[in-house]
Structure formats: structure tokens, C-alpha cells
């Protein structure tokens, strides 16, 4: 009877949360790429002499 | 090791009265409950064991974040890390000292609060016994949280949040053993034995995790 309401709410909220996750990941990636590009434009690059495994640095 | 035990005991009894504040907090929490649920003695005696247990749980967590903090502040933590004794053993001794200084007073104070809660003698005895057996588990699992707190700028509240979910089994079996002592059909021994098992299990996991966390938090 009124079950449709619950079903659509469930799917709607799931979509909302998943969309938020995807958007957050996507926008975060875009922002980081822009920052890297800005640094690159400013002439600050990763020196090849430095070991590439410097995640912590 | 005995020297460390005695030193820790002395410090917690003397300086700032950390042990006393724990008991005080415990009594205040339990005393506040009747104002929330009303002075109905029947209701109070029914929920009494649970209230005393929750109060004790919160009181233990309250004092935990100081377990390694003082050592870190005065630098003796580094000495412990460099000492030839295994760090796990040191942590275990510190946990014991902490338990003697802060949890044992709670256990001793619990019958008094049981009277306030209109609990029967059997229930009071059961709560005291389960607290005696279960509170070491809280200290051990809390030690892991306290070791993490050392790395945090101000860790106190966060440690409670991280440790509380892990302490749920202790609470469940402590309270159900206390209830089993009063209510007839439920057997007392199975939850009580499981509580002992959990305590022993945490006595291994807690200091081990705390030692690993301390090693990693210091460098």
C-alpha cells in the first residue's frame, strides 16, 4: 500500500549519499590537481633527484 | 617493576588526587540518575545494577587519558621505551597500578551506591563481584586508547569515544551477570565466566596494542 514511500525514500537517500561521496571525491581530486598545476606554473616541481617514494616527506 | 608499581600508586594517590576524583565522579553520576528517572524505589532497584555499571564505566574512562600523559610530559616515557624490560610488561604494570588506584576504590564504593539504589543484598554483592572482575578489562582496553592519546595534542574526549564501543561487551556481560544473580531463571555462571574470559583476553590485547602504539607515537 504505502510501501512505495519507504522504497523510494530508501533509494533516494542512498542515491543522495552515494552522489555526495562521488562528488566529494571528484571535487577533491579536481582541487588537488589545480593546486598541483598552480605549483607547477610557479616553477615548483618535484625534483627528479629526490626519491619518488616521498609520500610522507 | 615493583618500584614502578609503587611509584605509580603513590603518584595517583598523592598528586592531584586522580583516584579520589574518579570515585567522586562515579558517585555523582549515580546520584544524578534518580533525579532523571524519579524517586520510584522499585524502578531504581530494577535498573540499579545497570546504573552502577555505567557509572563505573564512565568513571574508569575519565581517568584513563592520564595513564601515559604525565610520563610523556616529564620525559619518563622515553626512558620506559629505552629500558631493557619489554614494553608490554611495563604497560601491564602501569595498568595494574592504575587499576589499584582508581578502579578498586570504585569497586569498594559500589555497595554504598547499591544501597542508594535500593538494591537487594544479592544484587549488591553481584555488582561488586562483577565490577571487581570486569573493571580490569576496562583498564586494559583503555590503555590502548590512552597510548593513542599520547600522540594527540588533546586526546581525552576522543579516547573515550574510541574506547567506548570496545567496552560494550564488558558492560553487557557485567550487567547480565549482575541481573542473573537476582532474577531466578537466568544462570549466573555463564555470563560471569565469559566476563572473566573477556578480561583475560583484554589483558593480552590491551597492553600489546598500547605498547605498539606507544612505540609508534613517540618517534
Amino acid at each position, binding site marked *: 500500500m*504505502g*510501501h*512505495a514511500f*519507504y*522504497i523510494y*525514500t*530508501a*533509494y533516494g*537517500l*542512498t542515491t543522495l*549519499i*552515494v552522489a555526495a*561521496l*562521488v562528488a566529494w*571525491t571528484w571535487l*577533491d*581530486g579536481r582541487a*588537488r590537481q589545480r*593546486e*598541483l598545476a598552480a*605549483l607547477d606554473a*610557479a616553477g*615548483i616541481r*618535484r625534483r627528479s633527484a629526490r626519491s*619518488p*617514494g*616521498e*609520500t*610522507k*616527506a | 617493576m615493583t618500584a614502578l608499581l609503587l611509584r605509580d600508586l603513590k603518584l595517583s594517590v598523592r598528586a592531584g588526587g586522580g583516584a579520589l576524583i574518579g570515585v567522586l565522579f562515579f558517585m555523582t553520576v549515580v546520584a544524578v540518575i534518580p533525579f532523571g528517572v524519579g524517586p520510584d524505589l522499585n524502578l531504581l532497584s530494577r535498573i540499579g545494577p545497570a546504573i552502577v555499571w555505567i557509572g563505573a564505566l564512565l568513571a574508569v574512562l575519565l581517568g584513563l587519558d592520564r595513564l601515559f600523559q604525565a610520563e610523556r610530559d616529564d620525559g619518563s616515557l622515553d626512558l620506559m621505551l629505552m629500558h631493557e624490560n619489554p614494553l608490554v610488561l611495563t604497560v601491564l604494570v602501569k595498568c595494574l597500578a592504575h587499576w589499584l588506584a582508581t578502579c578498586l576504590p570504585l569497586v569498594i564504593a559500589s555497595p554504598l551506591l547499591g544501597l542508594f539504589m535500593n538494591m537487594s543484598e544479592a544484587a549488591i554483592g553481584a555488582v561488586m563481584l562483577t565490577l571487581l572482575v570486569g573493571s580490569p578489562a576496562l583498564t586494559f*582496553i583503555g590503555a*590502548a*586508547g590512552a*597510548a*593513542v592519546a599520547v*600522540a*594527540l*595534542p588533546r*586526546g581525552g574526549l*576522543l579516547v573515550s*569515544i*574510541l574506547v567506548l*564501543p*570496545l567496552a*560494550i*561487551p564488558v558492560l*553487557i*556481560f557485567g550487567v*547480565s551477570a549482575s541481573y542473573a544473580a537476582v532474577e531466578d531463571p*537466568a544462570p549466573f555462571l555463564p*555470563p560471569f565466566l*565469559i566476563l572473566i574470559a*573477556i578480561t583475560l*583476553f583484554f589483558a593480552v*590485547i590491551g597492553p600489546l*596494542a598500547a605498547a*605498539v*602504539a606507544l612505540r*609508534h*607515537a613517540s618517534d
Partner: protein
Amino acid sequence: MSDNSLAITKLSDLANPTRFLALAARLIPWLACLTAVAFAVGLYLSFTTEGDYQQGETVRIMYVHVPAAWLSMMCYTVMAVSAIGTLVWRHPLADVSARCAAPLGAAFTLIALITGSLWGKPMWGTWWVWDARLTSVFILFLMYLGLIALNRSMDDPSKAARVGAVLILVGFVNIPIIKFSVEWWNTLHQPASVIRMDGPTIDAEFLRPLLVMAVAFTLLFFTLHIAAMRNEIWRRRVNAQRRLAARMAGREQ
């Protein structure tokens, strides 16, 4: 760099973030497409199959609820494996992986809780039942949030990862105990009138959309996880380079 040098033969090769970034760049579009296809098929199936004779149309909620619940557990397992990687092998990507999995796990656990509650309202008549399974998922959610808070409160990411890894492992060891104790507690307290969680055995009719949706959700998780890891690596590079730039600027003066 030639393509050849980027080939990943061992897990330890992944320790090189540059190589991981190259792999991620190649993998993410494919994974995203696969996820989209799987979701399209899964959603089509879950809305076209027949309703259950007992649960009625609400069985469709299960097609998102069960995969989300499954992911909430798998995500914690991924975090635990990463934690071992951090502590034992000091794998530089492991801490990135654990850190990025936590928000994803929290989100999927939240989905499982919300959809479970929405299923419970028409079936049980209440939004929330202190059922063993619901309660343990709720505790899992709290653990995720605590770990996220821990990660956020430390400024040194590698230290946060190592300390957090200890807690993740302690939690992982504890999850079976929590599950067991909650079940014990539940049988003690729960009135017998509440309907059992496990309904009739699953029919093949429902199994098909369920499986497709489970695959879709799992693919979604891995896509997001790899993307989030890539973001985290970029973020650390930006930070490192900014620090380097500041140091160089200080030297020039």
C-alpha cells in the same frame, strides 16, 4: 618513463606512489564505466522483479540494504589489512588506503542503517529495533566515526596512520566479541514477539538483482577508494612541495 617500467609485478611495486598514480589513472575510467553499467543492470533488475509474497514491494529495499551492509564489513576488513601493511611492512600506500577507506566505510554503514530503518518501519512498525544485527552495525558506525575523528585530529599523517592502525586492528579483533555479546544481550532482553530478522530463504528471483547490486556496490567502493587514495597522494605532494617552496624562499633571503 616508459610504459614498461610502470608495470606492476609485485605488491611492493605499488609502494611507489608515481606508479600507483599511473595505474590509478588507467584503472579509474574503466572501473567507473563498469560501476555505471552494473548499477544500470542492477537497478533495472531490482525494479522489474516481482515482489515477495510476504514482504511485498519492500523487498526492493533489500537490494540496496544488503550490499551496503556487506560493504560496511568489507571496508573494515580492507582497513584492517591496510593497518597490517602499515605496521608490519611500513607500506607507504597502506596508510593512505586505511585513511581513505574510513569515510567510505562510514558512508556505506550509514546507508545500511538508513535503509534498514526504512525497511523496518513498514515491516516491524518501528524505525529502530535493538536487534542484534542492527545494534552491531550501529556500533561499527560509531567506530568508523571515531577513526575518522582520530585521523582528522592529528597533523602528521604518517603518525596518525600508524597510531590509527593499532586501533583499527584492536577494533577488528573485537568485532567478533562485540557481535557475540550483542547477540547474547539481545536474546536476554528481546521480547519474543518481535519478528525475526531472517525472513524466508532467498528465492533465485531475488538473488539475481541482489548479486548484481552487490557487485555494483563493490565496484563503486573500489572506484571511490582508488580515486580517494589518488587524491590523498596528491594532497600530500602539494603539502610537501609547498613546504619545499617555503624552505627555498627562506634560503634565498
